[in-house]
């Protein structure tokens, strides 16, 4: 057993935690693993190659209840945990955050300062594919952009996998489910598909940690991840970093714009 597995065994045996959310090797890919029994601990591995952002499970009451749990976290999870905490969605006393370094040593990040430091030191390089696509779209004229997005989003089947995969889409009732008024048509249509994505991006503004789980979850491989990516970059440039990651519920009297007459 490696150090991670040993630590996991101890935690579960000693009853320190009820559940460890981590990763295991699936048939073809790394997948999330919910480890509840000490004897299962040997299945745990550490990898940042999992397409899921496991922080998404931290807001699932039915999974966690009032139990203390541990999460084996990579940059993605930790960035999300920091944001979730700012949004009052984390009970710190019930959550243990573990990371594994390149030597296989397990570290517990006990405070949010430590987590923030971890994120600063481990920020992944930007994805060149995403950047290239954004640049390509930026260079199109408006009609071309419209045609591009219309044809892409026309394919969307509104399965809401993007919503389910996102750790920050934790609302009990999504706007897509509100029917008084019916903001979004519930069926698949180009209009409501576009409207849904606009809502998703607006709701993510300033909050998105850029983990890319939404795009990876899309069964049609639609380029929806670049919407949040583009929005995050532009917001930083236009408005700076918002308080608590939230740019839309704070303001600066000197915010600059050039379109209000």
């Amino acid at each position: 057993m490696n150090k991670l597995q040993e630590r996991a065994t101890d935690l579960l045996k000693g009853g320190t935690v009820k559940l460890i959310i981590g990763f295991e090797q699936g048939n073809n890919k790394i997948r999330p693993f919910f480890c509840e029994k000490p004897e299962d601990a040997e299945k745990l591995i550490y990898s940042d190659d999992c397409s899921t952002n496991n922080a998404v499970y931290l807001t699932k009451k039915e999974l966690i209840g009032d139990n203390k749990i541990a999460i084996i976290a990579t940059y993605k999870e930790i960035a999300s945990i920091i944001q979730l905490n700012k949004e009052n969605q984390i009970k710190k006393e019930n959550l243990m955050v573990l990371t594994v370094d390149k030597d296989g040593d397990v570290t517990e990040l006990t405070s949010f300062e430590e987590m923030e430091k971890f994120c600063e030191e481990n920020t992944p390089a930007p994805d060149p594919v995403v950047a290239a696509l954004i640049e390509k779209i930026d260079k199109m004229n408006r009609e071309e952009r419209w045609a591009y997005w219309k044809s892409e989003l026309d394919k969307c089947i509104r399965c809401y996998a993007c919503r389910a995969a996102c750790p920050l889409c934790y609302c009990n009732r999504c706007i897509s489910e509100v029917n008084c008024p019916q903001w979004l048509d519930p069926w698949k249509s180009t209009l409501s598909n576009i409207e849904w994505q606009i809502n998703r991006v607006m709701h993510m503004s300033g909050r998105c940690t850029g983990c890319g789980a939404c795009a990876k979850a899309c069964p049609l491989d639609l380029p929806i991840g670049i919407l949040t990516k583009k929005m995050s970059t532009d917001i930083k440039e236009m408005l700076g970093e918002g308080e608590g990651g939230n740019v839309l519920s704070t303001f600066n009297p000197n915010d600059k714009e050039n379109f209000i007459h």
Partner: protein
Amino acid sequence: MSRIGVFICHCGENISATVDCERVAQEAGRLEGVEFATDYKYMCSDPGQTLIKNAIKEHHLDGVVVGSCSPRMHEATFRKTCAEAGLNPYMCEIANLREHVSWVHEKGEATTRKAIQIVTGLISKVQRNKPLNTIKVPVTKCALVIGGGIAGIQTALDIANCGQKVIMIEKSPSIGGHMSQLSETFPTLDCSQCILTPRMVEVAQHPNITLYTYAELDKLEGFVGNFKATIRLKAKSIDYSKCTGCGLCTTKCPNKKIPSEFNEGLGMRTAIYVPFPQAVPNKPVIDKEHCLYYQKGKCKICSKSCPTGAIEYDKPDEFMTIEVGAVVVTTGFNVLKTDFFPEYGYGKYKDVITGLQFERLASASWPTLGEIRRPSDGKIPQKVVFIACCGSRDPAKGIPYCSKICCMYTAKHAMLYQHKVHGGDSTVFYMDIRAGGKNYEEFVRRAIEEDHVNYVRGRVARVYEKDGKLIVKGVDTLLGAEPVEIEADMVVLATAGVASKGAEELAQKMHISYDPYHFFAEAHPKLKPVETNTAGIFLAGACQAPKDIPETVAAASGAAVKVVSLLSQENLVREPIVAVVNRCAPPLFSTCVGCFMCETICPYHAIEHEEIKDRKTGAVIKTIAKINPGLCQGCGTCVSFCRSKSIDLEGYTNEEMYTEVMALLNH
């Protein structure tokens, strides 16, 4: 199926000249849900209103749309009409057919069409409207005044004289504030103490005023009409019920070398002390930081000397919770100390003093008995330089604003100096002389012309000491920018007026806004000068910006009237246009997920945390946002921010607005 009534007003010919009112009514009458539609010459007239009332009763209308002038004109009128006929007033909407249609468009088909569309939009909206009831908030009939300077004194007396109860708290041992430190006041040169002390005594003796000195606000909760304030009563170490104020203890206290705050450090006081002879209350407190007993555990001389046994060393600070309906903040200001000005000596030279220190030197009582003697050696200065705008109007010093009072008090200082030191020589360096105010300009002219104060327009670059003199290097910009060098015996800096210490912290406790300089912000610079953005909290005096005494007193009386008009009501009646967080059946309880990101959006701090608890165990199931209807003013910014649409604004709900927009377009 709703039963809407539509009433189109001709407004004489104001509307009907360009809009075919009859057709608007006819078309509206054909819409789904419309039970009754008509047009009339003057809908706001008595017969017009009777027409509406009769229609409501006769047709059992459950909603009304009046097509008339702007709702800003007659919305209240028509809502009242509906209420009189038994229809909830918020089931009435006004289509603006005059200001937004007939007066701005030519006669024609397009104009009539637009009128029909607007009416259609509102017919759809009113079908979604819910009856709303005005919000009644009971009022606690007592006001809290924070700060016992002239602003607080005036406010408290005015409120108390109207028969309302007042609680005044003052953080220092005596009320009186900065005004009690002043020698004489411009532009009349009457003695500050003489006009102030009677009012201080009146506060202490007024049956409607309860005074707590040495007390500070610890916490403020609640909202207009219903505040709950926690007051920290700092331990005075003296039982005031026993103390007779004989003052024996203060003469016996061995620690006599403590710089007196009242004298701005120019005189000394003891550790057990009354700040000044006319203090109210005129009873001592023990300054624990300097008391030998508190610091070293030995002494107790005051206790031994006290004839009534009033000294109580071991009493801790106490906390008191009071309920008040309104709060007036009158915490005043401070002046910058000389050590803010390295170019003028950085607090190094004893004879470079602030204007407030000069007030003490000129004061008849203390520490020089009214003789102008400089602090370093007690000599009478033969040459004095006054420097105006020290810090003020200087963005590089972080104080771009004008401190307003300095021009006048500097003229007064120079004048007092000339009166007291015959043959003395005084120079004032100034940027501009701002003497706007009744008899102010005349006062300054008197200083220049009758008392021969030498006014030099220009800045001082540096003050340094050489051979026992203070060398003041400046420039006279009216004489071709000639450098001026004066060998002075004393230099008085008119240092900038700044927010009082702890102003920011106090503002945060009360949730009122403040400007970048920590002065408290009024709700509107012109029309709401004594209100804050938090209903029920008012401001007066220099806590808002530097102000002189007449202005402060005027503002204090203004704030008092606002308080009295609030406290004279049994209930506050408020429009029910407030935001609400939805509630639904368990296990969800509300669609609010408690992210509380809306908290920062609310300018009124109306968003609170509500814990939903298990009825049996009392365990917290969920924490959701709750909007305090007493604080909410109904802007609705939180509503459009909320991602899960868990907040809605009564009167402008998502459904109402959505329906109105879609109906406008679909017609």
